[in-house]
């Protein structure tokens, strides 16, 4: 077992051509250990979504390497990429990305059925995860019949059920009200602490980030700062984050 679930090694991502070059990611390196809950904070355009897309192999880096459980995923091609996402990653998106034609149960089942897990096991695992994420009552419902918070927890269930190496969450609370956000983040903590899930979350919201065990700040494609919660209370950690945000200045303020 590797201690470093995720290791990012000097990655760069350029957009555009020679005449007008944009460095979305400019030499970023960090690593995430097993069982960590890491938040990446940054303003719009800071490169945090590009970073997440690179890790999730949706986007390709210009240079550098990304290792997931020791495997260099920047070298993967075609179907290897799909297989990697299927077996190693769990996704949670800002806009939930549930299939509107399927019920919650079927949405969760899909991520197992594409791995050819048999139905008996699918059913058992869904029941277990639904219990953990308190979504048992919506399993038969369609996405449009659920609240935003319920949808996002269904999406979380879908992400966690395959036992991925790492869960990637892109602004998971972006479309939720504060109550639903809180509930979702508490579930994230539960998954992280009780089930030892590794979570990498991108957000621009300090409150959301304060649930993490470590926060990495990104500005203009570079790592700006990094703070660790340690034994602080969530409230104390939140204040620390606010301090850094103030230091960062600029438009991140209005995200509060």
């Amino acid at each position, binding site marked *: 077992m590797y201690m470093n679930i995720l290791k990012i090694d000097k990655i760069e991502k350029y957009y555009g051509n020679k005449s007008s070059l944009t460095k979305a990611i400019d030499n970023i390196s960090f690593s995430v250990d097993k069982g960590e809950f890491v938040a990446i904070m940054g303003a719009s355009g800071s490169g945090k979504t590009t970073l997440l897309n690179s890790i999730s192999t949706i986007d390709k880096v210009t240079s550098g390497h990304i290792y997931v459980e020791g495997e260099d995923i920047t070298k993967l091609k075609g179907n290897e990429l799909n297989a990697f996402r299927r077996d190693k990653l769990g996704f949670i998106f800002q806009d939930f990305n549930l299939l509107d034609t399927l019920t919650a149960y079927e949405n969760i089942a899909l991520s197992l059925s*594409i791995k050819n897990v048999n139905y008996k096991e699918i059913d058992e695992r869904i029941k277990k995860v639904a219990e953990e994420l308190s979504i048992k009552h919506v399993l038969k419902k369609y996405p449009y019949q659920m609240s935003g918070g319920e949808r996002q927890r269904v999406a979380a269930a879908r992400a966690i059920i395959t036992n991925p190496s790492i869960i990637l969450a892109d602004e998971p609370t972006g479309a939720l009200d504060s109550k639903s956000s809180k509930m979702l983040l508490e579930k994230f903590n539960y998954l992280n602490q009780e089930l030892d899930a590794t979570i990498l979350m991108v957000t621009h919201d300090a409150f959301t980030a304060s649930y993490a065990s470590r926060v990495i700040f990104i500005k203009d494609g570079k790592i700006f700062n990094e703070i660790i919660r340690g034994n602080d209370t969530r409230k104390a950690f939140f204040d620390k984050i606010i301090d850094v945000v103030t230091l960062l200045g600029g438009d991140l303020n209005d995200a509060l």
Partner: protein
Amino acid sequence: MLFKLSLKNIRKSFKDYAIYFFTLILGVAIFYVFNAIESQTVLLNVTATTRDIITLMTNMLSGVSVFVSLILGFLIIYASRFLIKRRNKEFGIYLTLGMSKRKISTILFIETLFIGIISLFVGIFIGAILSQVMSLLVANMFEADMTKFTFIFSKSACIKTLLYFSIMYLIVMIFNVINISRCKLIDLINHSKKTEKVKLKNPILCIIIFIIAIIMLVYAYYKVTIDVESLSTPDKIFIPIILGCISTFLIFWSLSGLILKIVKSIKGLYYRGLNSFILKQISSKINTTVVSMTIICLMLFVTICVLSSSLSIKNSMSANLEELAPVDIALTKTRNITAEKAQEYGYNTAYIEDSFLPITDSLSKLDFDVSKYLKDMVTVHYYVDEALTVEKTLGSYYEETKKTLPFLTYNMPEEIVTVSEYNEVAKLYGNETFTLDEDEYIIIADYDSMIEVRNEALKRNTPITLLGKTYYPKYSECQNGFIAISSNHINAGIIIVPDSAVDDSLLERESLIANYKASDDTGRKNIEEVIINLANHPYISSTNLEASTKLSIYESSVGLGAMVTFIGLYLGIIFLISSAAILALKELSESTDNIDRYKMLRKLGVEERMLNKALFMQIFIFFIFPLILAIIHSIFGIEFCKFILETFGDKEMTKSITMTAIFLVVIYGGYFLITYYSSKNIIRNR
């Protein structure tokens, strides 16, 4: 500026337009091909009769073209509405930028114009090539020699195509303008945000509806096949047709819910791979497209029936001729015209005098040397007793028949022939000969529907009275046979009686049946020319002599067969294109909505192969569903067509059904593949 934008739009969305273009080009090409037949056949070496038939055929085809252009017009409007719907967001952006609706209409106008010009140009080009193949087909149909091949371009067909399609495009433009002027900005922008609501149907209701639909369908099938005799009047056929349409709708309505329910209950199958996704995709769409599925299914059904029966008519007609026209010529004239009749119809004296002469005498008056041109001559006299009508020969069965078959002419006098003369004919034709006792009669017929009616009367031993003497049927069934040569089984019944049963007072008509005194085709053709030239003889106005020759029957029946085949082909292909195009467009517009879903599946890590398979299955099921039901309908529909076409004899349809299958596979399959690859492109690129 607007011009440039339009051009860019076309270039950019060329892939989206592929189906649209394909349909337009195909439509133009087929329209051209069928309208160019006349010019294509100008150089064919055919007889005057065949030439007349070709002219008649091209006239009919141009009539059908009006109908075809209506169908194509609707199709084009439908297609362009789909394309506009797909571009709602784009128009929304134009409107928010402050572009006026008039300018957007102008953009659409220019686009339609360009697409129109390109499709017309390409379509006519392809049509011109295809019509060369068509001339081969025409030559083959009319059995003319294609001695030399020349490339023909039909200017008139070209102009006609341009005119018709220009009108269609103009109407499309008007529709587009109306569409644009009616839409609201908020709808345009929010278009993609509509979430799909999956309405699940009550499974029990589905089962009940499904069973009802099946019962209706089985009843309709029963009506048009086993119980087909009961459809005696044309209006009765509407009941099975309406039942068929309704049940088709209900089957599609209930099947979507039912299949989902069944597969869902097999958990191991439902939760395997992307099955749950595919199934929900299909069922959610079938919910909203039941009506169009029904229409497409019915159109396919009509196409299959029309193609397979029209293609078989030609074959069966040629096959019949050998049997039904075994001699070269049959000359007929009405005999012994009475004074009253002459007055009634205003015949002149020469005409009446001629009617008292036997055929051979009339022929010599026409300077036709019988012994020089004809051999194997047999003379038949037809006798008629005004009192002996169909009603009388049906006897006690008449009252029942009148109820079931009210349209039969019951007051028509029966034709009577003596047994010795009939036997002469039968010997010449190679048919069965008969002997009769003094009080017996036989009915000779080969028209199936009439045989059935007559057989019942014969079974009841119905007597007939002739010149005061009574006769009874020798057999309880009609005997197979005929006297007049023709292309079809149309002998509804001739009564054969002992020689002593009739006398000259009943004589109505005389027929002279013979072969040409020639050993080869050229010799026969020369005698045929002599016969045709009799029409120019001065004496011809004084006689009612009529000739029907094997050659003329052959040409006209081949012509009739070919005509039906061409019209069938024309309509069949247009119907096929229309239904396939509607399906393809619907499917493609869905694919645009599906981009996000497939994107998401990809993020979940579904392999490309699995995604493509899912897409393939989704489109395949959508295409195959209406086709399967249409094929089931067609099995019974063709059975019914056979019944209607039974006068054309031959019931062998394997060849024509194979041809139909080839058309289906090429056109329908072609549309399926284009749809699949375009959809694949749509979900891959964006």
